[in-house]
């Protein structure tokens, strides 16, 4: 499951999507917008078609490097309120070390490569 979406991420559904009785270890990463300095959320700009293709590439590379059974990556864009998730990654594997390594690799790669931008807060100040 790979998704780049403007809608709130159904976290439970993403985590469930990698569950099979053949996997013994599941590692998840969830990135959320956290409360700081009185903000009510963050606006993510995105190049959706490319973001999707980059996520597919990252998933394929992770699957080549580690023995992973299933993987799901969902990234949200647009306005994400404090407490809501911006990214959810779920990895199912036979061995926990592979699951951890693959999951951490995916979020690191997303941070480096996915064409997604948190909009700078000063841009709102300029517009006001």
């Amino acid at each position, binding site marked *: 499951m790979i998704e780049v979406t403007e809608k709130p991420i159904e976290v439970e559904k993403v985590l469930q999507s990698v569950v099979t009785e053949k996997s013994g270890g599941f590692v998840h990463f969830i*990135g959320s917008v956290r409360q700081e300095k009185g903000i009510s959320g963050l606006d*993510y*700009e*995105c*190049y959706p*078609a*490319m*973001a999707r*293709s*980059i996520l597919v590439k990252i998933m394929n590379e992770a699957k080549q490097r580690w023995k992973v059974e299933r993987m799901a990556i969902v*990234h949200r864009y647009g306005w994400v309120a404090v407490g809501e998730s*911006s*990214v959810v990654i779920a990895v199912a594997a036979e061995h926990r070390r592979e699951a951890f390594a693959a999951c951490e690799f995916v*979020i690191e790669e*997303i*941070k*480096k*490569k*996915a*064409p*997604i*931008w*948190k*909009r*700078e807060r000063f*841009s709102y100040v300029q517009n006001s």
Partner: protein
Amino acid sequence: MKIHLRFFATLCNRFGTGEQEIEIEAPQEAREIFRSLFEDRNLADRMIRFVRFAVNCEYVSPETLVHDGDELAFIPPVSGG
């Protein structure tokens, strides 16, 4: 030859638009197309250091030739996740 340009984040602010169509005579390097958008070539060269190029949703090297009908995106430093 028509090229579809995409601008994001700071570049979108800089150019005041997210998309633009341009006409070129022959296939051209991605970085040359980027440079041609600036009157100030020094500024262009400074910005090129932190911009990546994508053609049809794939990262490419700055020297990659862009062809008719391609979508060329300029990708400033990303901050997803």
